[in-house]
């Protein structure tokens, strides 16, 4: 172990956990968002929703190929967490990554152009939907192997600790990924060395066609760190306010040198696992119910209008703005040229 990491580890805090209600206590505090923040969140979540719908459409037209995993339904998680981190904090996730990239401030045009495999995509067309990166925005991918990003994110946090740079790495993974062995190897090291990492488990109830009940002995993922003394909290991942509040506590905890913590985001994906999954393993009304009662975007919209903090017209204007950004991105991504053939051998090593 490098010395820097050891010294951080020596700051042992006895008060475990980022908040009072640690280790899976259900009720996450909900912070009231300012009007500005609420509108910001609305717009950012809508941008992801429209982006994903458009990506689905381009896939339907054959412009996007291979695997394409849409994030529709889960938008509040990345936007709430995005509001909780500071400039310089890093983000890493799996293949359901378009939302994370947009939340990291990556350009919808560059993301969409990567989806269509064009030269102006973030990976020059060589990575595709599942493998995209932006070092400028501290987004470390985009990983196709389930669970791999958990150790990688822990390593980024290790580097933060090593350099003592005050940064925190948000490491996202799914309920399915939570069963991979390297997750627990990572938990152990992260706690042992008090690494500044927040593990965000996006529990959308399914890993492909396998529901959490069919894959997991302990279905409360916030407790998955308990044997390592890692505190965890269950959060309503459909409520952007709850996500932001829990995120702020967790990030502050990690940043203060207390080590990792786990946030289990209770969320839901509306679409199939990938474009070709008919999602026959869950009843239709399960999806309908979440959509009707807990849609992360509709909830903000209803609140803004109901509390008269925004007018219909104001939100309509945002809708139109978002739509035009997305249309522009789609147009760009379908007209950009493919990569130059010489690109085939570029960047293999450097």
């Amino acid at each position, binding site marked *: 172990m490098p010395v820097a990491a050891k010294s951080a580890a020596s700051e042992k805090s006895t008060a475990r956990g980022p908040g009072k209600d640690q280790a899976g206590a259900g009720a996450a505090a909900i912070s009231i968002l300012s009007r500005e923040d609420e509108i910001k969140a609305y717009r950012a979540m809508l941008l992801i929703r429209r982006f994903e719908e458009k990506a689905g459409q381009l896939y339907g037209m054959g412009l996007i190929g291979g695997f394409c995993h849409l994030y529709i339904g889960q938008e509040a998680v990345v936007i709430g967490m995005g509001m909780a981190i500071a400039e310089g904090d890093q983000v890493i996730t799996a293949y359901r990554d378009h939302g994370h990239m947009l939340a990291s401030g990556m350009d919808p045009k560059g993301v969409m152009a990567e989806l269509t495999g064009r030269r102006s995509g973030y990976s020059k067309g060589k990575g595709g939907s599942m493998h995209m990166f932006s070092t400028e925005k501290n987004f470390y991918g985009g990983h196709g*192997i389930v669970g791999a990003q958990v150790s990688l994110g822990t390593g980024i946090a290790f580097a933060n600790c090593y350099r003592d740079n005050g940064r925190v790495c948000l490491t996202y993974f799914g309920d399915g990924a939570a069963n991979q062995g390297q997750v627990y190897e990572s938990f152990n090291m992260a706690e042992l060395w008090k690494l500044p990492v927040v593990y965000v488990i996006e529990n959308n109830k399914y890993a492909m066609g396998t529901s959490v009940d069919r894959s997991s002995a302990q279905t409360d993922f916030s407790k998955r760190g308990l044997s390592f003394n890692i505190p965890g909290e269950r959060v309503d991942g459909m409520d952007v306010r709850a996500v932001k509040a829990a995120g702020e506590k967790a990030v502050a905890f990690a940043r203060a040198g207390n080590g990792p913590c786990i946030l289990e985001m209770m969320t839901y994906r509306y679409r199939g696992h990938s474009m070709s999954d008919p999602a026959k393993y869950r009843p239709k009304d399960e999806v309908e119910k979440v959509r009707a009662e807990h849609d992360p975007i509709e909830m903000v919209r209803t609140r803004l209008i109901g509390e008269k903090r925004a007018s219909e017209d104001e939100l309509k204007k945002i809708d139109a703005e978002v739509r035009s950004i997305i249309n522009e991105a789609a147009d760009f991504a379908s007209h950009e040229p493919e990569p130059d053939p010489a690109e085939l051998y570029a960047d293999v090593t450097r």
Partner: protein
Amino acid sequence: MPIEVLMPALSPTMEKGNLAKWVKNEGDKVKSGDVIAEIETDKATMEVEAVDEGTLGKILVPAGTQDVAVNTPIALILVDGESAKDLSAQPKAKLAPAPKSAPKPQPQPAKAPAPAATIAALPDVAVPEAPSEEVPAGTEMVTMTVREALRDAMAEEMRRDKDVFVIGEEVAEYQGAYKVTQGLLQEFGAKRVVDTPITEHGFAGLGVGAAFAGLKPIVEFMTWNFAMQAIDQIVNSAAKTSYMSGGQVSCSIVFRGPNGPAARVAAQHSQDYSAWFAHIPGLKVIAPYSAADAKGLLKAAIRDPNPVIFLENEILYGKSFPVPKLDDFVLPIGKARIARAGKDVTLVGWSIGMNYALQAAEELAKNGIEAEVIDLRTLRPMDIETVIASVKKTARCVTVSEGWPQSGIGAEIASRIMEEAFDWLDAPIERVTGKDVPMPYAANLEKLALPSVAEVVEAARAVCYR
């Protein structure tokens, strides 16, 4: 102007589909996310969601219509402020058409359920059925896909031996991520067809342990890319324990799943592990091409007392071949097959490499070069004798695979020929391989990264000096 709703491609391979049902009617309000119709693809019934907000103005393709081509307009949506009279206006195309070089949905057999960009580039050739001593004369042949052949092989062995069971991700209730285990749960129940969590290292090790204890697991990896999580248990536990225990502990286990590049799934999901596993003493490695070989060799693999790596190919799953109709069709492991006889040059392939080799042979024949095509079928133990015998006749050899060149199977074949038939060679051995790069996502680059029939033809001509 109303917005056109186009018939979507709902899987990487879909070209057309049936419009099963309209969920919304003309005049209904729709908003994005609403299901408006149901479409049957080759694999499943899928829902089509609206992306735009408005009113379903006109249904252009009625429910029940079969074989609607992808990108056909199926309905018109009226947006804010439009009414029925706007329907006659020129509809606004959703997006300007893609540039010439854009990936278009690839033409391919409508039935192929797996992504098939590569197979699209490789249209089916009739496989010349070399008369085989493995099949008794007069045996009735039935046409089936590789997918069905694999399924039947597992089902037959499970009926025969109650120690055989299948374990892996999505193998039971989902019927297999690529539908290879279709129906097994229904026939054999949840005790013998076991869905696992996503824990490759864990369930591979569990399988090896069960095999130590005498069961005969078939461990499915959703794809071989994910077996990298488990390679330690395969190499350090499965392959070596018979030896390390002085022959006391046996490990009769099959690890199987799709191997090699699929279509547009990029670097982490597109790689060929032939050379990786063929390197390991203690393993047997099988990589079949045809459905008959898939069936006969999978049955043999399940019965074999050793750990067997069974490398399938997603692109080949949907391809049909004649398969002998026999109650118990088992093929010998470690025997190559001469798929096409010839005298001028030996082409050696296995798995999907055969697709390139056989088509190249067809091309070469037009130019008066008669290629002998050998399907290795098993990579370890390798039937090098069959290759050597052929090279002694043709004096020339080209190997064909999608794997990377360095330290690949082609390199192994070349050195074995050098060792055992150097004096018979009239030209250096050529290898046609995947390019020495991780698989790129972009359609044009992916095509360049894969081998092609043209490259095989060119290599064969080069070694023939013609």
